[in-house]
């Protein structure tokens, strides 16, 4: 069980745990308070992907609560944060209303920033990047552009190729990407947000 094997090393309680640095930075960035979590596990119990996660959601919160540098690194390098789909079932049931989806968004952004994205999650992040590349280009998603972009990023060249004929026949695949008029505005929008960081 991945979750247990990784915690053999002892956590040495040092000053940082007294300062609650991790909790503070998360609270500042997202408004979510990990100190509220009392580890009941209801989030994990209701998470449809918990079985597939290296660290399920309640475990991630616990690792953040320990304020330990090693644990924080493990969280940012985990596959779990990229599997999470923000279905919001966890916060819907959490008795302390800990905003786990918001924390996941934050951890994902931090993971990219620190260059710690798990290799297992490469395809997931590639998908998001391809999606946004397409939107940046024309203001709207072109499934064709996105798919090509995705295949170039991941080299899953033959994936879903079987679907193309039926998609075409059903009129669901557009060859000519739709574009909005204000593409300039979109480029500025992207520049001021994601590309500036």
């Amino acid at each position, binding site marked *: *069980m991945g979750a*247990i094997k990784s915690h053999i090393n002892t956590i040495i309680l040092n000053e940082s745990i007294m300062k609650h640095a991790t909790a503070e930075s998360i609270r500042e960035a997202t408004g979510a308070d990990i100190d509220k979590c009392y580890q009941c*596990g*209801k989030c994990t*119990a209701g998470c449809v992907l*918990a079985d597939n996660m290296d660290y399920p959601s*309640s475990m991630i919160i616990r690792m953040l609560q320990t304020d330990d540098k090693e644990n924080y690194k493990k969280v940012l390098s985990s596959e779990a944060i990229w599997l999470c789909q923000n279905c919001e079932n966890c916060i819907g049931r959490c*008795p302390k*209303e800990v905003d786990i989806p918001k924390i996941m968004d934050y951890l994902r952004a931090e993971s990219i920033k620190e260059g710690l994205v798990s290799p297992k999650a490469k395809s997931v992040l590639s998908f998001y990047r391809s999606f946004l590349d397409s939107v940046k280009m024309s203001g709207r998603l072109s499934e064709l552009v996105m798919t090509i972009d995705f295949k170039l990023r991941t080299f899953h060249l033959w994936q879903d190729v079987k679907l193309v004929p039926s998609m075409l026949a059903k009129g669901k695949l557009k060859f000519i990407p739709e574009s909005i008029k204000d593409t300039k505005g979109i480029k500025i929008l992207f520049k001021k947000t994601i590309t500036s960081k």
Partner: protein
Amino acid sequence: MWLQRNWDCNVILSKLIPYKVSNIMSRIGVFICHCGENISATVDCERVAKASSEMEGVEFATDYKYMCSDPGQTLIKTAIKEHHLDGVVVGSCSPRMHEATFRRACSEAGMNPYLCEIANLREHVSWVHEKCEATTNKAIEIVHGLVEKVKRNRPLDAIEVPVTKKALVIGGGIAGIQASLDIANCGQQVILIEKGPSIGGHMSQLSETFPTLDCSQCILTPRMVEVAQNPNITLYTYAELEKLEGFIGNFKATIRLQAKSVDDSKCTGCGLCTTKCPQNNIPSEFNEGLGTRTAIFTPFPQAVPNKPVIDKEHCKYYQKGKCKVCQKFCPTGAIEYDKPDEFITEDIGAVVVTTGFNVLKTEFFPEYGYGKYKDVINGLQFERLASASGPTLGEIRRPSDGQIPKKIVFIACCGSRDPAKGIPYCSKICCMYTAKHAMLYQHKVHDGDSTVFYMDVRAGGKNYEEFVRRAVEEDHVNYVRGRVARVYEKSGKLIVKGVDTLMGAKPVEIEADMVVLATAGVANKGAEELAQRMHISYDPYHFFTEAHPKLKPVETNTAGIFLAGACQAPKDIPETVASASGAAVKVVSLLSRPTLIREPLVAVVNRCAPPLFSTCVGCFMCQTICPYQAIEREEIKDRKTGKVLKVIARINPGLCQGCGTCVSFCRSKSIDIQGYTNEEMYAEVTALLNK
């Protein structure tokens, strides 16, 4: 003009009662307490004492470490005698703590206790400011204000009020039963009222009690019978408190006796009517909806009184005008329809509130099915299943198909410790009764498999921890640490999605035959209205508030009204019984005094010499706004002819609570509060403003 008139009155009054008003004649003593370090850590007490000694009218000033202690009080008493003091200001903690202490000390030294005032240097100064000169200056200013007030204080005498030697206990559960018996056995009269048709409360619904696994009804019913037979207890069931007026020692309670449609004096309790009633599919409240009852019913066989009542909402006669079968069959002609509710009024000396609590129903939980799954039940429903007198005669069976469940899941903390659901508190008893339920299940279903999903196990009472370990170690109940995200039904089974946090947050899924939710303890329906009717405080969850959580756990902030049992907070039976006995002794101590001493800090309408008699013009605006109905009409008559010369307001010193509303309302400024007169207050405020 009116101010002139008021002052004229005071001049006249001061000629009638020898009284010192000028500064030169005052001999005030100022005593500044360090309160250990509570005050002295922030305030320079020595400087305050020195400054006080220089104030006009102050004869003696000193400071001391613990003024409330024995030597401290002796210091005050000695100073009063040696320096012939006629007023005392103590700079100390809040008057709510030690005003009574210091006033008693002054009284023992021969000085009227109402010539002693407390300057709050702790809650108003040292506890809210940093240590600096300004803080000490503030302390000095406050002392100065009170010195000026005390100069105008008049000696007052306490008011004596008679005490009605009868107690009212509201609620007939184990708390009410215990309190009633304890008070009655001290020789005092008790009226016990219970909303339902029988006393007994939730304890009568339980199968066995932890940690001894005593049969609940076996230990309860003898007490219930004792209540019925005790000559000092008057029991009214199907009764509710309609109104409560008056004050400590002198309450007047109006009680509504709901029409039972059965004449208790004729009914023998044979029960024939209940077997003949055609309306027999009404969900039984006593069985928490798992069984049925008839419209004319006794809730359970050991009910006290063991006489049925008719539930008007479900009775065919009351709803449609037909039937009347019970009347036809009753051998003693005890059925009487269409009687109105009766109202009785009783004079009461003290009230004990023992209205108990309730537990949430399964409908409250969206993630466990909104109450639509028949085999998801709450703890109280499980008690009914486990009870030998319950709907399944003590066998654990599924409500849906009557089968015996082979796999049962208990979910602890349902609703409790859950701010998202509006219940942040712990309900205290669920960990224990869940262990009990699991043990009972294992005892009854030997090949059964039980799992408890828990967060923490709270077993703090005597023998409680051992009891829970017994469940785990001897009865092999499966304890899994983690909560359950959801429960849904599939093909007659209940799918439980939980987690084992001790295994590194591993999801756990169980296909159960029955799920028991340990739901949160909540205040009873109608608790808020009852609290408002009695003018007692309650918290945001509608549990009644005790006067002080540690030092006054069975009193309320309303004098003469006491609390016991779960209406104050969720409790187990031992604590409930202990608190009931505690409340009982408070009641007995109150009722065993010949009279009650009340503080004289009440409002008074001024009187002066004829032909004015009083500046009051008799407009009675004060009467309309007095919250305690304490204002009466007084006719001033000519002594010879008996002719009514003037009608003015008179404040009943027995009812007045000294709130001061009439003082501010009175247009002619004819009312003043003893101990807080306008003159005293103006002097204090002026001194504070003039520094």
